[in-house]
């Protein structure tokens, strides 16, 4: 395998796809992803070798030295061509069979693990154009919702159940796993595993409407201890307002935003949009479109259509003071 990777490296696939490409497929951080990119490298290496070989053959076929032309351009029969086909097809078949075996081996190695009892399970529901997350637990009090940022413990296979609320999407974290389409009416299963703590970017890979381009998500792989702490924190409600401004913000939020959003710690319990209970624990807004800071949050609420044309979030008419109050309140949702 090393020799093959070397071929790919020499051929220039790997370096081109690494640095500065957080979504590149060779930034493997998990075992499965590594298997996949090894296979891509093997097939890519063979492919490049074939291209180079045929290019060389083609060039020499055109320009190789020939006996002086005494035919005057008259067509000639030359029976010598058939061995090309015998050898070419024969060698292709050998390479093909070897590649097929590697392919089948990798399919077997990367398909669903047999025993998945007790695996941490996250139910992902894809929406136009964001990701709803439900952390499952046998104890229904320990189930909670989140959006767009999947926290997982490192070194463990995490089961991802995929459902769609509307159209077909595809769930893809290139560093951790291959794609799995998200199809309405069927629950697909995929697994992600990160061996190193870090933030891995993911995106929707199947065209799903106007904002398909901006339907990102993140997988945050944490030390198991940190993950457990994060998880128990998520089960808590959002903090209570501590001053008049945030208290007013919560009131405005409850009257203007509650139709779509849930925010535990307030009376808001809408289900159409993302759960905002711990909004400030996430690093981006609107599925990766904006950084999560006070300025962008205000801009986003003021005119969502401007930031993400076509988004389902409506422009709610708000006075500047109401807007500021909502932002102030949401900024406390750690």
């Amino acid at each position, binding site marked *: 395998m090393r020799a093959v990777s070397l071929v790919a490296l020499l051929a220039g696939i790997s370096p081109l796809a690494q640095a500065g*490409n957080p*979504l*590149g*497929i060779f930034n493997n951080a998990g075992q499965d992803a590594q298997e*996949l990119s090894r296979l891509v490298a093997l*097939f890519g290496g063979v*492919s490049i070798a*074939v*291209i180079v070989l*045929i*290019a060389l*053959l*083609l060039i020499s*076929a*055109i320009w*190789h030295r020939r006996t002086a*032309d005494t*035919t005057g351009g008259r*067509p*000639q*029969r*030359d029976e010598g*061509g*058939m061995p*090309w*086909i015998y*050898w*070419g*097809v024969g060698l292709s*078949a050998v390479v*093909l069979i070897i590649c097929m075996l590697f*392919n089948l081996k990798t399919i077997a190695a*990367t398909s669903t693990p047999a025993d998945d009892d007790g695996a941490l399970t996250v139910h992902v529901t894809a929406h136009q154009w964001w990701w709803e997350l439900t952390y499952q637990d046998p104890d229904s009090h320990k189930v909670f919702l989140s959006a767009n940022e999947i926290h997982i413990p490192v070194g463990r296979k995490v089961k991802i159940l995929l459902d769609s609320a*509307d*159209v*077909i999407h*595809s769930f*893809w974290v*290139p560093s951790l796993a*291959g*794609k*799995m*389409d998200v*199809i*309405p*009416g*069927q629950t*697909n*299963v995929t697994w992600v595993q990160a061996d190193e703590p870090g933030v891995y*970017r993911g*995106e*929707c*890979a*199947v*065209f799903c*409407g*106007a904002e398909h*381009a901006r339907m990102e998500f993140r997988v945050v792989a944490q030390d198991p201890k940190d993950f457990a702490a994060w998880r128990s924190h998520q089960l808590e409600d959002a903090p209570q307002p501590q001053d008049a401004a945030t208290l007013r913000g919560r009131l405005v939020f409850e009257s203007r935003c509650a139709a779509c959003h849930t925010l535990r710690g307030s009376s808001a319990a809408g289900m159409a949009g993302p759960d905002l209970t711990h909004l400030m624990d996430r690093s981006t807004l609107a599925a990766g479109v904006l950084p999560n800071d006070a300025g962008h949050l205000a801009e986003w609420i003021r005119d969502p259509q401007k930031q993400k*044309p*076509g988004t389902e979030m409506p422009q709610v008419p708000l006075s500047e003071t109401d807007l500021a109050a909502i932002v102030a309140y949401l900024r406390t949702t750690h």
Partner: protein
Amino acid sequence: MLVTVDEAERHERELEDIWETKGGPFFGWFISVDHKSIGKRYLITSIIFLILGGLEAAVMRWQLAQPDMHVLTPEAYAQLFTMHGVTMIFLYAFPVLSGFSNYLWPLLLGSRDMAFPRLNAFSYWMFLLAGIAMYVSFIAGRAPDNGWFNYVPYANGTFDPGVNIDAYALGMILLGISTTVGGINFIVTLIRLRAPGMSLNRVPIIIWGTLTASLGNLFAVPSVTLAFVLLWFDRTYHTHFFDSTGGGQPLLWQHLFWMFGHPWVYSIVLPAMGIVSDGLPVFCRRPLVGYSVVALATVSTMVLGFGVWVHHMFATGLPVTSLSFFSSASMVIVLPSAVAVFAWLATIWTGRPQKHVTAFLFFAGFVILFVIGGVSGFMTAAVPADWQLTHTYFVVAHLHYVIIGINVFAVVGGVYMWFPKMTGRFMNETLGKWSFWLMFIGFNIGFFPMHIVGLQGMPRRIYTYPADVGWGTMNLIITYGAYLFAMGVLLFLINVVISRIGGKAAGSNPWGGGTLEWSVSSPPPPYNFKLIPIVARRHPLWEEELGEGQDRSSTNAKGFLLNHGRETLGTTMLDAEPDVILKMPGDSLTPLILALALSAFTVGLLFKLWIVFGIGGGISLLACVFWLWPERSLSQVER
């Protein structure tokens, strides 16, 4: 009944009179059933669609040249990439090959026309109307915007209301009719209308390519037509074929679409590969190496092509056994492809390639693009690799190497080769070489980096991307390359126009080709052949040079005159022995009327315009009865 060429000369005026389209340049254009006019129309119309699709791509490449550009709204971008795909795949890539095949088949086979000349005209009109149907919604402000494979449930009325998807459905249904009747015409022409002695193992490879494509379409097109009809039912009458809330299956659409889609891919490359397999020998001055295995490979590619559709669906959550099977089946296509590649290489190596001829450059360039497009397909056939590669620009790169590399390069090379036959004039070779190198270099700069940006994680069909994912550089290179390629295509088009007006005169056989089309004048007379020749070899015009055996074809010596009205010779299926003298129909307005009426009928049905539906249906019915009315004059005489 066999007459000599001297005697035939005396009947030339008579034949001309029988076969010429009457009615003047205007009306004559609407009634002509001459395969040569129809073939040229197909070529010109599909190249107009190529230009439209190219303009759409040019705007998209501008939008993508850098991160966070605002040239287009997301919705406009969605319409453009959809129409670009629809245009190139349905309105350019296949019809352009139909153009070549329509023009060339009777000339290659030694016949005076196709088996069903009026059906041929009808097929063209339906294609034109299908293209118009798809573009009308563009003008109306809302074109199809769900990608050319139009997955449900996004294509359902809930998510994508409006006429756009219905217009796409309409276009596909009309195009399906056009493709099907066109395919029937090719199949029956091959079975019945080969010159005497042109047994199946003597037909040129482009005939095998088009025949295979036609047979494939006969079985594949119904799938997509059905899919669009069912979708229309779901959208209009709220049935539940694809709707999971009513027990339907969104994945059913993908199965039906790709059971059609994959054979379709082969039908837009196999005839193009045929062009190269027939073109290279002319410019390498020797017959194709391995004719029989190449013909066999052509057919087996299509046969395999019916068993691999699932490789478009590797990430949909199918069971492992199914993935393994379809993955292996897809990889096996490497073998027939290898046959073709090594046959071309061997033909060049053992021949004397005419390196200075533009057509040869296109065919030779095609070979390497074919390999690049092939191996990237091989990579995506590996399931685990595909889980990373599918839905990304890697696939975009792959399909452009297939459609541009294998289709466009063969087509442009084919135009350089047969332009003298079609017009009697050479194309300009200096411009030709410029156009080749601009296209070849521009194409590779524009499309090879798409593989890389795909490996960098860029998904298809995104209207923009943020700066921090690192795709900016590659996309800028891609845009420059694509524009360079477009300039090459533009140069080619300019060359076509100026050569049509003032190109150097070409004789009947300017390249010294060996097949029958080079035995008639350039451009060919309306009746194609004064005498339907008797064919003894695969290359009737190269018999002396190749010196194979004693038998000689009778081109320009002796043959069937058939001058009692429009007639051609019907021969037996395998050995092409003379069987019957077929009466051929005259020029007719009926194909156009039927095409218009049938389109009105379909429009009426799809958009619930019941009056249009009724009138269209009624006229269609009358047109059919009129078309098929048995002619008493065709009594069974023998001659």
